[in-house]
């Protein structure tokens, strides 16, 4: 059963990561590859605070989220003043650089990783309780992003993506909106990191490498950018595929590159065959009350 629980939790957390990344890259139109590092910041913050500073786990988890938000603002505030392109360039440095810092610090356990992270809920209520927690967070995140996308805020995000200058000319602050979207998406990733850390109780910098970025991006693109269910479908599919590959009993030295090739290959195939992803987005922004409108995609 533990194996199944492990799969449910990892798939759930990747749904959270893909959904929050969809908020940033899809709805916000912000191109970044630094999602795994916010996942890492949440995991490390929560792990360090709870193990070495005696902070209650739940509080440490929220602290992990806050640290991810603060770090995201440190990335977006200077770069977005210039342009979106700088965000992408800076996000690469952020992802690689911050992970190097984590690798070289003593209190994070360095490259060997951070062990003995206190468990949460499992000792008192069993493994099932943690599975329920992760599923609840997953559903909450998917519904939250859906709510935002279909609210007035979603309409404003749509307008901002269409034409930033015209958006400013109706009195709206595009930069602040981008910072908020990026902060929220990164905060959610940080919380997912904390959930990850307290289940597996062992984290290493390698788990948050740039390859994860490709995986999360693939989930969003293959699933369907700017849709509620796209990242969910994408995360399920892309987590199921590597699991299926493990049944082929290939040596680990081959398995790693094959997974990488699979992700990249899938993105390429989808770019040509089905650029809209498995779940296509509508061309028109729609609010919570569905109405029949012309000109909608799929």
């Amino acid at each position, binding site marked *: 059963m533990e194996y199944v629980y492990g799969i449910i939790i990892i798939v759930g957390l990747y749904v959270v990561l893909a959904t929050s990344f969809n908020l940033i890259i899809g709805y916000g139109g912000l191109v970044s590859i630094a999602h795994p590092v916010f996942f890492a910041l949440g995991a490390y913050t929560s792990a360090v605070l709870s193990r070495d500073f005696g902070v209650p786990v739940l509080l440490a988890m929220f602290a992990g989220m806050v640290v991810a938000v603060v770090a995201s603002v440190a990335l977006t505030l200077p770069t977005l003043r210039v342009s979106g392109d700088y965000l992408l360039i800076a996000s690469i440095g952020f992802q690689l650089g911050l992970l190097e810092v984590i690798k070289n610090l003593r209190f994070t356990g360095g490259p060997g990783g951070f062990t003995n992270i206190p468990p949460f809920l499992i000792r008192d209520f069993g493994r099932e309780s943690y599975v329920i927690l992760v599923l609840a967070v997953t559903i909450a995140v998917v519904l939250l992003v859906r*709510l935002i996308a279909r609210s*007035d805020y979603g309409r404003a995000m749509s*307008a901002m993506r269409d034409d930033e200058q015209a958006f400013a*000319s*109706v009195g709206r602050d595009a930069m602040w909106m981008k910072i908020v979207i990026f902060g929220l998406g990164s905060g959610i990733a940080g919380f997912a990191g904390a959930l990850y850390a307290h289940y597996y109780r062992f984290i290493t910098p390698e788990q948050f490498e740039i390859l994860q970025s490709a995986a999360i991006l693939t989930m969003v693109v293959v699933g369907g950018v700017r849709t509620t269910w796209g990242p969910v479908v994408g995360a399920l599919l892309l987590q199921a595929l590597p699991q299926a590959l493990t049944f082929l009993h290939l040596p680990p030295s081959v398995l790693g590159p094959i997974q990488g090739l699979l992700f990249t290959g899938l993105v390429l195939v989808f770019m040509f065959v089905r650029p809209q992803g498995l779940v296509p987005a509508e061309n028109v922004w729609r609010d919570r009350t569905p109405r029949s409108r012309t000109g909608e995609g799929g």
Partner: protein
Amino acid sequence: MTGVLEVKNLNKSFDGIVVARGINLSLTAGKVLGLIGPNGAGKTSFFNLISGVVKPDSGAVTLAGVSIDRLKSHERVRHGLSRTWQHIRLFPSLTVLDNLLVGTHDYPGESLLSVLLAHARLKQHDKIARERAADVLGRMGLSQVADALVSDLPYGQQKLIGVARALMGDARCLLLDEPMAGVEGQSYAAMQRVVRDAADCGVAVCVVEHNVGFIQDLCDEGVFMFSGAIMARGSVAELIRDPQLTELYFGH
């Protein structure tokens, strides 16, 4: 009488090409001022400088007595400076109505917290904004296309929607960049009516336009621009009759 918008000694050049040469201009509440001049005279650049899209090299702009020089584009709009674009620039992923709703003053959709928490306030604002949008669309004769995609509409109607969106923000000063280019028939009359109505409500309007008939019908006064400088100000009829200005306009 001091104007709603006061521009003092505005200068700007790009790599030696002067687009604004010591411009002094005042826009008065309730009046429509026509900005006339040949292509390249610096009319759109002048709008870009005032609206904060481009930073001037020197000069000062005040709106209702408050300096707006240090304000960003969107902050100027919140102070009451609204503009349209020569190339319309609507939001193509939104319907006509949604284009207008994003343009409302004090738009709650900009704040994530208010969207998630202040539901009652949101509903109240939404109701008022929809009524207002319906009113603006009604006056433009566009009620029947409220739920249409903007990109599905003819060019003339898109131009009207650009102006309608700018009117949603409680502007004190409205800058219209070639509102009549490509506009014909019913849209032409609707545009005239709406701009005049805005002025009658106390908005100071400035119109850049090549359509001399429209300028003559609508504007209380005209300004002639050439090579980044204001050459003359007076009644539109006078400016059109002036042989020197005509020569500058047609370049012969």
